[in-house]
Each structure stands twice: as structure tokens, then as C-alpha cells.
């Protein structure tokens, strides 16, 4: 069965593409990106459309590629009264997300010390597989992290009150239930708070190179030539274990509630059920852990800037979640509805006047942060009314792989990747060269192509473009 073109850059996956679809699929993509679209990813988009209570469409963003259960780049809004919640719609790395900081120091002044800065960031912020944090916590303190999120970090001296104001959810989801977090998740969480992790996670120093929207960039505090810092990490082992624990519970729930699914990884439970309530509570706990993690890293980043450049005034532009499920209100068929929005590799893109975004940004819409792959441009966009109408206030999240990690390692050598980046004026530092090969820029779709699609459709609009200068990979 073929996809149906609705209009430029919007395609429909018709009902019947896979058995049991309740709504059509809707893919935002360009003719160019379609060439790399995997049939299995379309199948996954269609599978999501079979979830009970799914509203409007099963949505996929232009970076869409095969995930497990949901495709990466997937968004689904499920009826808040008789829909379901699915851990597969959030993924293992709960609240993997991005935080953007900005400093008044112009990149031209910083360049001379960039090497030193990257070295010091690498030394200060633990990264790499199974990296252990510098914090010494006990299980009771960790429970507070699960309950309070970024606020825990600020209360313990890692950052300021202002920081909280510029995080999605103010860095804390109130429905977290730390008492339901398993001992295993606590054990994994204890040693990893304040660590970057590995794989696609990174810390990047960049520079605002182009402004597309003068008013919005002014409100977001971005000026051409300014230095930016991007932090990309999530809930580490705590989140991975919480999702692992819950998948087993949900497999039984599927049976108990007689839900038919095309893929085990889509296991779900009706909202209001014991299983759904418990999952939502521990997912919020993991999300809070991730916000605390990015907050602690922010603090250490400020310390490094202070030490090397004598300036610790790094302001948070915003902090967004890329993997999360949230209870929100949206207009569906002209009526206000409670919707549980799953964003799996997608970003919230709330428009202006929304009470859930910082007051300072309400004349513009929320900042949307789209990291590029290593060595490519990142973007700041703004949320729009069109996103509220079409995509439950959601847009794309990043570049999305085109090559598997092993293919990338076969094709590229870490040392060459490093050399090529250097020739382009980008310093890359990683625990191992193989990470640099896995994360080679060409292993990903171009962030420019992804962002152009969402901008042209209007589910978010370009505000500024950031060129990378230095990157630390785990």
C-alpha cells in the first residue's frame, strides 16, 4: 500500500496499511528525505495507530526512523479518558532531552581558549559507558531527586531559581512517585547522577551564526556571534531500568485488559488502571532525575567557564524533553480534551500565550531545541499555533540516524572523523575513537533538511542557527 500525498511535505499512511488501525498515520517529510524512509518505520507508525483511544493521526516527524514499538520521531495523542499509556511511546531513555545555555562572551574571544575549555569540560563532567558520578548520595536522597527534579539540584547548590523557570515543567513533574521506583533502578541511579553517558549524548560549544527571526531571537536572548552551550543527556540507568521493569508489568496488563497489539513493545494499559497510574508515576520520577542531571551538569559547566574564562554567567535559554508522555489539554474536533501525548524523539512546541511556557516567552512561543549530529548545525525554533492544531503541540527533535552504529564504524574511522572535524574548525573529544566513528556526521540525516520540513509546514518556525565549535562525546 502506498502513502498518500496530502500536500507538500505531508503524507498519509492510510487506514488498512496494517491491520487494526484506528486512525491514519501522518508523516511530515520531504521528497528528499522520503528516499531514506525505511518501510519498517512506516509500519511502526501504522502500528501506533492501532492503540486504543488514539486521536487524529499517528504522527511522525521528518527524522523518523525505526525504533522499537514507536518509530523514533513519533508522536501520538491518546484520549485522556478512555485511551492508553504505552512505555514504548516514551522509550528507555526517559526524558532524554536538550538544554541550551548562552553566554555574552563572543565566540571570537573564546576561540583562543577553546582547546583548554573542551579539555576541562571533558575532565570535569563524567562521560562514557557506565560513567560514575561525582555525587555521593544515599537512597533517601535519591528519592528526593526523583520527586523534585531540577529543584533538588538547585536546593543543593547546583544552580539558581531562575534556571527552573526556563525548563519545560520547571524541571519537575509533580506526579512522580518515588516509592514505586524499584531497588534496581535506585541502585543504577545512585552512581550515575551528574553523568553524561555515551552514544549520541554530548556537550557542545557553539556560536549563533544566523538569525531567522529577529523578534524571537531577541526574546530568547540570542544574538549573532554569541557563544552557546548545549547539553544532551537523559535519565541514564535509572530511566532505562524503570522502563525495563515496567515493560514486564505492561505485558501482563495487555492480557488482563484484552488489548490486541501488532508488536509486544507497544504494550499499554488503560488510563486510570493501576498499571497506567504506576507507570506514569515512575516515568515522571525518571523525567525528574533527567532534569536534575542536566541541572547538575549545567552547574559544573558554569564552574569550568568561570575557571577558564572568568565568567560563569551562562543563562538557560530553555530545557526540553525529547522522550516523554504528558497529560495535556488540546482542542480535538473543536472541543477541549484531556490528552496523553507521547513524544518519542519529538519536542513539545507550544505556541505563544500558552500558560505552560515561561512568561518571558509568551509573546513568541516556546523555544524548540534541535541538536544537529556531531559537527552539523543545531537550530532553535519556536512553537506555533499550527503545531497546536495539528500535532498536539509537537515538532521534530533532531537529525535521526541513516546508518546503523556498526555500519558507521565499518565506514568511518574515529581518528579520520576527528581530523575532518578539525579541518572544519571543530574540536571533538571522546572517551574512545569508536564513538566518533559511530556518531560520524554522515551517519545522520542533515539537521537542515529536517528543520526545513517542519518550518515549511509551520509546525515550528526557525529562529536561529548554531554552528558547532567544540564537542565532548561520552
Amino acid at each position, binding site marked *: 500500500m502506498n502513502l498518500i500525498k496530502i500536500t507538500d511535505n505531508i503524507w498519509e499512511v492510510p487506514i488498512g496499511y496494517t491491520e487494526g488501525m484506528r486512525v491514519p498515520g501522518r508523516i511530515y517529510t520531504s521528497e528528499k528525505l522520503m528516499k531514506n524512509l*525505511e518501510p519498517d518505520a512506516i509500519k511502526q507508525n501504522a502500528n501506533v495507530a492501532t492503540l486504543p483511544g488514539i486521536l487524529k493521526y499517528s504522527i511522525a516527524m521528518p527524522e523518523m526512523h525505526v525504533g522499537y514499538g514507536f518509530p523514533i520521531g513519533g508522536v501520538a495523542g491518546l484520549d485522556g479518558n478512555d485511551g492508553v499509556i504505552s512505555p514504548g511511546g516514551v522509550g528507555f531513555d526517559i526524558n532524554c532531552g536538550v538544554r541550551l545555555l548562552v553566554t555574552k562572551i563572543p565566540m571570537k574571544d573564546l576561540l583562543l581558549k577553546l582547546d583548554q575549555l573542551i579539555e576541562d569540560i571533558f575532565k570535569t563532567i563524567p562521560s562514557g559507558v557506565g560513567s560514575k558520578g561525582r555525587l555521593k548520595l544515599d537512597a533517601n536522597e535519591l528519592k528526593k531527586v526523583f520527586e523534585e527534579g531540577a529543584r533538588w539540584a538547585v536546593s543543593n547548590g547546583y544552580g539558581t531559581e531562575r534556571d527552573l523557570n526556563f525548563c519545560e515543567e520547571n524541571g519537575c513533574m509533580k506526579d512522580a512517585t518515588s516509592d514505586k521506583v524499584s531497588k534496581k533502578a535506585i541502585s543504577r541511579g545512585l552512581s550515575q547522577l551528574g553523568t553524561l553517558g555515551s552514544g549520541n549524548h554530548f556537550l557542545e560549544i557553539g556560536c549563533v551564526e544566523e538569525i531567522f527571526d529577529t523578534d524571537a531571537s531577541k526574546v530568547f536572548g540570542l544574538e549573532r556571534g554569541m557563544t552557546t552551550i548545549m547539553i544532551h543527556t537523559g535519565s541514564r540507568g535509572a530511566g532505562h531500568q524503570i522502563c525495563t521493569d515496567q515493560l514486564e508489568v505492561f505485558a501482563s496488563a495487555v492480557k488482563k485488559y484484552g488489548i490486541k497489539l501488532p508488536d509486544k513493545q507497544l504494550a499499554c494499559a488503560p488510563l486510570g488502571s493501576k498499571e497506567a497510574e504506576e507507570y506514569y508515576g515512575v516515568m515522571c520520577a525518571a523525567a525528574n532525575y533527567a532534569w536534575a542531571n542536566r541541572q547538575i551538569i549545567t552547574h559544573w559547566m558554569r564552574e569550568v567557564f568561570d575557571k577558564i574564562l572568568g565568567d560563569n554567567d551562562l543563562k538557560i535559554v530553555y530545557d526540553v524533553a525529547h522522550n516523554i508522555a504528558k497529560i495535556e489539554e488540546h482542542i480535538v474536533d473543536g472541543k477541549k480534551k484531556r490528552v496523553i501525548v507521547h513524544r518519542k524523539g519529538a519536542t513539545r512546541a507550544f505556541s505563544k500565550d500558552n500558560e505552560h511556557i515561561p512568561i518571558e516567552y509568551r509573546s513568541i512561543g516556546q523555544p524548540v531545541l534541535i541538536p544537529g549530529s556531531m559537527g552539523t548545525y543545531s537550530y532553535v525554533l519556536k512553537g506555533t499555533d499550527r503545531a497546536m492544531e495539528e500535532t498536539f503541540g509537537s515538532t521534530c527533535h533532531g537529525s535521526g540516524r541513516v546508518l546503523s552504529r*556498526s555500519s558507521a564504524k565499518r565506514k568511518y574511522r574515529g581518528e579520520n572523523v576527528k581530523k575532518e572535524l578539525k579541518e572544519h574548525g571543530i574540536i571533538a573529544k571522546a572517551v574512545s575513537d569508536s564513538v566518533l566513528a559511530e556518531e560520524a556526521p554522515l551517519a545522520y540525516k542533515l539537521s537542515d533538511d529536517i528543520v526545513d520540513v517542519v518550518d515549511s509546514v509551520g509546525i515550528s518556525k526557525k529562529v536561529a542557527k548554531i554552528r558547532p565549535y567544540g564537542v565532548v562525546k561520552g
Partner: protein
Amino acid sequence: MYDNYIYLDHTADVKFKAYGKTLEDCFANAAKAMFNLIVPLNKINIELRQNIKIKAENLDFLLYKWLSELLYLFYGENKLFSEFEISIIRDKDGYTLDSILYGESVKDTHYIDIEIKAVTLHDLYVKRDNNIYTCQVVLDV
């Protein structure tokens, strides 16, 4: 003849198949396929042993829980394993896997190349074809 396990290409994740003449061999090979990604098996010495028991309603979940538990022992208890003695018994409630794991604690000399976030249920199966047990697993990395 067949390999004990093979790795397949998957865009975002790692996928493998493991084989065995018995269900026990198949599960042991799946565990080896996973640990071999973390540290080459020949770099894992046998210095400790540990028993674990897993129960599940069906074979798919038995495999999922088995590998998830092993992954937890790596992250939560810093242990690596390379040899597995397994027995799997079927009863009215499903399956029980009893195992002795052989390996060592993670040391500075172990170079760990990949961060496996979790075992997924995506495309996971255990089946028997021509007297060979095969399982397939996708790991989130």
C-alpha cells in the same frame, strides 16, 4: 553447523540472533552475544560465580527477563559474565530458568565500548526450527 550467535544490522540499535541445540544453549548463547558486545568474551576471566532464577509466563518473556537481569548485574553490581550453566523447566505457571553465571567484577583493564541501555521486546522471539532453537533480540544502545 551454525554459529552460536550473529549480529544483524539495525539503524538505531543492535540486533542479534542466537542459536542452540537445546533451549538452554540458545539462552546461554544469547547471554554471550550480549556480554560480548560489552567486553570481548575472551577478556572476561572466571573469578566468581552467581546463581540466578527467573520465572516467566512464556519463553519470550523468559528471555527478556533473563537478559535484563544480566544487564542489571553489569550496571548495578559491576559484574561481567562469559559462561552460563542453565536449566529451564516448564510447569503449569510457565517457565523457570535456573542458572549459574561465571565471570568477574568489572576492572579498569576492561575497555567498554558500548552502552546498552536496555533489552527491548521489539522483534524478540524464541522458536524451534529443524531441531535448532533460535532467538532474536534487539538491544537499545
